[in-house]
């Protein structure tokens, strides 16, 4: 199973995402932002980092990379896409996910081990979990505050598109404690916390993040 990991200038957690794919049993394929080449991957991860230094707006410049046109096209045809942190910001800027990520309300970068509640266990990236399950994975960002207009938030909630919520303290001021959302078909998911940093007991606070990557491998097989 080929899972692509895109590297933009300033991507940082691309090596981590590739490791997570590998430990889950998939083949990580590195993809270059400037190439129009998805290398026949079955799904794509947009990793964390500071693409283009977060200049302009976080994710805004990367969303216009040549490869992102291919990602948007394939996503519309149903290819699973996961955006982590900066990747989530890119997906919002590319119009694949609703809402926007803004500066944390307390204005500091904050890195901590975060409890999340899984609100949807039927997306391509969350099959391995139970609805209502609580998982611990790291969160680390300076611009992770999820915002949208109240009416839009109501609509997202109504459509069941909130996938993760922060529990035990909201680390950045996100509206309604939203940590991650999905597109209409449940195949594109974006979240601020970092599942790829919770895949080994040796290096993470838990191994709760591995389920993202085992989920998509099953989703691709059954698709």
């Amino acid at each position, binding site marked *: 199973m080929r899972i692509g990991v895109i590297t933009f200038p300033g991507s940082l957690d691309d090596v981590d995402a590739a490791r997570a794919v590998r430990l889950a049993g998939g083949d990580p394929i590195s993809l270059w932002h400037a190439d129009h080449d998805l290398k026949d991957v079955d799904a794509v991860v947009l990793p964390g980092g500071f693409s283009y230094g977060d200049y302009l707006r976080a994710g805004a410049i990367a969303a216009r990379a040549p490869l992102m046109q291919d990602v948007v096209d394939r996503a519309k045809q149903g290819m699973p896409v996961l955006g982590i942190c900066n990747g989530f910001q890119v997906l919002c800027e590319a119009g694949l996910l609703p809402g926007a990520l803004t500066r944390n309300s307390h204005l500091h*970068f904050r890195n901590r081990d975060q409890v999340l509640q899984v609100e949807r266990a039927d997306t391509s990236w969350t099959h391995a979990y139970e609805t209502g399950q609580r998982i611990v994975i790291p969160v680390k960002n300076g611009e992770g505050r999820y915002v*949208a*207009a109240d009416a839009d938030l109501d609509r997202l909630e109504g459509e069941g598109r909130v996938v993760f919520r922060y529990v035990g303290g909201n680390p950045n*001021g996100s509206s309604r404690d939203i940590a991650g959302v999905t597109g209409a078909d449940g195949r594109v998911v974006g979240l601020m916390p970092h599942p790829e*940093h919770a895949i080994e007991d040796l*290096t993470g606070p838990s191994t709760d993040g591995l389920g993202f990557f085992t989920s998509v491998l099953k989703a691709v097989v059954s698709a």
Partner: protein
Amino acid sequence: MSGDGTAGQASATAGLSELDTGPGRLGNRLDTVDLAESTPDDEQPYAELGLEADEYARIKEILGRRPTTAELAMYSVMWSEHCSYKSSKVHLRQFGDLPPSDALLVGIGENAGVVDVGDGYAVTFKVESHNHPSYVEPYQGAATGVGGIVRDILTMGARPIAVMDSLRFGRADAPDTARVLPGVVAGVGGYGNCLGLPNIGGELLFDDCYAGNPLVNALCVGVMKHEDVRLAKAEGVGSKVILFGARTGGDGIGGVSVLASETFDAEGPAKRPSVQVGDPFTEKLLIEACLEIFAADLVTGIQDLGGAGLSCATSELASAGTGGMHVDLDTVPLRDSTLTPAEILMSESQERMCAIVEPDKVGAFLAVCRKWEVLATVIGEVTAGDRLTVDWHGERIVDVPPRTVAHEGPVYQRPMQRPADLDALRADDPARLPRPQTGAELQAHWLAVVGSPDGADKTWVTEQYDRYVRGNTVLAQPDDAGVVRIDEQSHRGIALSLDGNGRYARLDPYTGTQLNLAEAYRNVAVSGAKPLAVTNCLNFGSPENPEVMWQFAQAVRGLADACRELGLPVTGGNVSLYNQTGDVAINPTPVIGVLGVHDDVRTRVPSGWRVPGETVLLLGTTAAELGGSAWASVVHGHLGGRPPAVDLAAERALGDLLAALGREGLVSSAHDLADGGLAQALAESALRYGVGARLELGNLPAALDPFTALFSESTARAVITTSDPGGVKTTARWAGVPVTELGTTGGGALAVGDLLELPVDELRAAWTATLPALFGRPEVTVGSVPAGTVPTS
């Protein structure tokens, strides 16, 4: 130095900007080598550039004429204290004279030393100061401190894999600390986070002596294969000199000379323009481009542009090579087209590197730079002669022997004198201080030490740093050492610790420096690693003060003697002098870094207690040693007496024992004893996972009262927990390390006999409240945005 750093925009470099075009006999004429020869008696502003009269005379002697403005600029920055080590060099030679170490692949003199960590891996690590800039402009000063040390590591051919920061500020409640500290922490985080390097630990300490001179020391560690080590030298006539990375701007001009090599004073002009401005995104691209260039073997020599900028890179590359180099300065890409040639040569604009590339590899080199969107320009070439020449608008403005710029600067035997107050300070023994008598008083003092700014929880700082990026961080703050995996198949890894107790060094710089080394060694050892090599950042006051110079010489001798005894090489380091405002110098603060190696990081030993029912053991010998202690400082504001005795043989025995216990899986946790003694170590062990312990101090020597047992700072000690106390005792006996049984983990309190019972929750409240109360921790606020302001899909 004015408090807000903005008063008087007449910067120390204003005189320089006028040099080429300003008033005087030069008028608007470019100062060329020809002009210098024909106007030998023109006055030059060498003093404003930080040069002494005899140094200026020596430059004239070397060149056989007066220097051009550009040459004067180059010599002034390269002969600054910061670049030339002119006051410290005669002492630092002791590190080079240490017996050869099998582990050392590259020693002192390169950008950073390189050590063999096994399996063909080499590790390079170094700590460097950015003290003065961080006081003037906290965010950018600290950020570019990280950027600079990362480029040093990259220059050796290594991929940078982690950073650490060792920070010291004035009193925690001083208004200026609230100005400096948040900016420094945000700067360290802002740069390191954006670069994708995990921050794995460091120090945060407060003392009034740092009020006007905060210390910001940053460490970077990188890893490579043995065959990938790169050196800074220009060889091969005809090879091209390529400048790549950011454009050159007017920032940081004179950073090393007028900023880092002078004492702050109240009246001088603001030095803010001498601080550089960082762009971590460009540095990240520079890292990836360099690693790709190294992998394709496209360079013969490489040097980063840090202090003294292009002056340093070109003269050092040429000096270390065959000697000849020519540069066309017009080709340097500029941010500001009005810069004079002297300013271009002195600019410390960040995120720049200089490479020597064979002509047939230039195309491939430039292609890699294009891929990573890094600007790269051929600015010159290696020449057959032994002169470094620079042209500007077709005229020669520099023609110098590069060794005289880079490696043959002035060397001073500064006068030294034992501080006049030292005997009185040492005679003021903490034995005179009132001690807690009852259990309640002991408990109050325990809480005071743990809740003091030095002892308190550092989460306020570390949560602003990314500790997870790259996915190899095994241990980080608050564990004693940072541990990073370097190979996912073999599980090989490294451990690092930085320690620098300035109170001990003030009381006895020789012993104090050894104590700092011992602590860093111990911190690495408690993680289960084998200590391998030493780096250092020596922060002192003005070398022109004989008492400071005496402290410095003592510290260097202490470190060299201790490294000899422990068999550890010093792989490099950094000296930061002039850390004083007016006549008041900081406490001598030698920050010592120790690198250790883990053959298998899976056997690393964490510092916290996780499970109840385990036996708590104290390893090592406790004596009544409270001179320079955290207790004396926190409870009584006292600094006096003598620091704890050093016992390096005991440190080595303890380290060997801990490594053996880790290998045999006999130990569940280990925590070193240092500032705050047993009290602080027990508290931190309990706080990690909220597991308390029931303890008895009765097994310690009868002469030790509970107070001394808890707060003495005797060295070569650690607290461990184990489920096999018999096995530990057997191994410890073999290793010659005394073992004292203290009690058993479990419960929600630290209970000491029937003397006191300190609930972990109460301890936690005291421990966690301090830094947020001082520096604020704004609550998270959740609000909504107006409809239409955010797109929805």
